[in-house]
């Protein structure tokens, strides 16, 4: 096993919330794109809702990241070399890659948001139609999925024990991000009046995402091996219990009923579990 002596980077609540909201923004966009491409016309309102949700959630992300910096006004140093004024891009540094993905994805999220907003009034897709429109949301979805997952890779590309002891964090955050995104969309959908068939589809998709997440949780602990013993402290155990409740209970509810209240309960628990996962991974490795 690799042995390092690393000081904690003091990445705390701003980062936890960024990981959580980035997962929702990217995941919701991807779900909206797939729903638009694969669903029927009754799913159009929910797909539109996804694009309406993605941008506002995404907009919080750069604010959190900037506030987390020791020198917030130097946020632009991430993109532009402050000495040469050339572009800064290091493909081997996920933080550098992530900044650019966040920026590029914002463009897709903004265009899709405006399109959905216009569609809300017109009742149909005003622009981004046809092959070009499909290609646009597909590329946007790829960036969205990247945003939901790279945060785990960012933690792994370090020498911090736990984070760097596993390759599964990016995968785990992505699976959890998709599940949390499905739960968010499901919750907002059920707060309004939408087609039951669309709601059922989200529930159905979340079943796969939760199963994927549970499998990756097992992989995560297997890859950690002895390093995972750090999580045996009571406070981390309590958070892992929330993670388990936030996956197993929604999964059971998804398989047993399609009624509104249990579905909303499942969504709330999924959100709590997704947040708990990020808290325990971010704080657990640093304390």
């Amino acid at each position, binding site marked *: 096993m*690799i*042995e*390092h*002596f*690393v*000081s*904690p*980077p*003091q*990445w705390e609540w701003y980062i936890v919330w960024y990981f959580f909201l980035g997962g929702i923004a990217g995941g919701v966009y*991807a779900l909206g794109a*797939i*729903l638009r491409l*694969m*669903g029927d016309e009754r*799913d159009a309102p929910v797909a539109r809702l996804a694009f309406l949700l993605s941008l506002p959630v995404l907009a919080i992300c750069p604010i959190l990241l900037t506030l987390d*910096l*020791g*020198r*917030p006004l*130097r*946020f632009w*140093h*991430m993109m532009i*070399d*402050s*000495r040469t004024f050339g572009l*800064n891009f*290091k493909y*081997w*540094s996920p*933080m550098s890659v992530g*900044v650019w993905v966040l920026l590029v994805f914002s463009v897709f999220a903004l265009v899709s948001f405006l399109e959905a907003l216009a569609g809300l009034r017109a009742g149909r897709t005003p622009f981004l139609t046809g092959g070009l429109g499909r290609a646009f949301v597909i590329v946007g979805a790829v960036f969205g*999925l990247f945003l939901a*997952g*790279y945060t*785990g*890779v960012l933690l*792994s*590309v*370090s*020498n911090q024990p736990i*984070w*760097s002891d596993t*390759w*599964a*964090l*990016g*995968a*785990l955050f*992505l*699976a959890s991000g*998709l599940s949390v995104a499905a739960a968010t969309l499901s919750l907002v959908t059920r707060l309004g009046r939408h087609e039951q*068939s669309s709601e059922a*589809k989200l529930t*159905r*998709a979340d079943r*796969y*995402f939760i199963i*994927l997440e549970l499998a990756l949780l097992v992989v995560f602990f297997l890859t950690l091996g002895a390093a995972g013993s750090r999580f045996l402290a009571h406070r981390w155990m309590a958070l892992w219990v929330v993670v388990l409740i936030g996956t197993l209970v929604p999964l059971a509810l998804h398989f047993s009923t399609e009624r509104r209240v249990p579905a909303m309960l499942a969504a709330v628990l999924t959100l709590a579990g997704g947040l708990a996962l990020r808290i325990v991974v971010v704080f657990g490795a640093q304390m």
Partner: protein
Amino acid sequence: MARTVGFFTDTTLCIGCKACEVACKEWNQLPGHAPQFGDGYDNTSQLDEQNWRHVQFHERTTAKGGVAWNMMSDVCKHCALASCMEVCPTNAIIRTEFDTVYIQPSVCNGCRDCIAACPYHVIGFDEASGLARKCTFCYDRLQANLTPACAKACPTESIKFGELSTMKEIAGARVNQLRGQGMSEARLYGDKEYGGLHALFLLTDKPEVYGLPPTESAVLPSRNNARGYLGTLVTAALGVVGAVFAFRERAGKE
């Protein structure tokens, strides 16, 4: 004048006086933290944004059953392949004309990625300035052709400073000398790790005892890029297939 400099810290000569710590703080105008008093003589406790030199005290039991100290003045290693420099997204961390690793205070924005990357617990976050800070190898003194403050102050020459190649020669000769005198546990640390360190250490115990990763653990953060992204990519593919399956299913049935 550009040259490739290095430290060689001979722990067998360290008497734990901490003159290096004081000289470093004086020259670099580091106020330091309030001292922490434990059950030993180490009240500095670690390298961080205020402590760029740290004299470690490790108690060990001698062959005769007595207690002795292994002392070592720790410092940034200025790795040839530096983990901090690898991850730094702003290019604030640069390699100087002296082949040392330097955080440019005017560029760093305090993201702290370097802190999670450094395997030697060297870099600390300075709340006052909002910057990541560490040993500069006395960059300003080097530019003026002066010896770094710590090496200048060391009264036993436990900390030696000079051309890296010279340091390697001295270190190799010293290890051979000590081994010849029967100190079989004497070993050199830093000639193989991270492409070769610019701070070499003569140790009398395993590197882990001094908070130094063993040679086989001296690996860079970027080792996790490919497998991390690959795992994410496979998960993305499975997730998309799941969503496609779920979103088409009902439509097909009805």
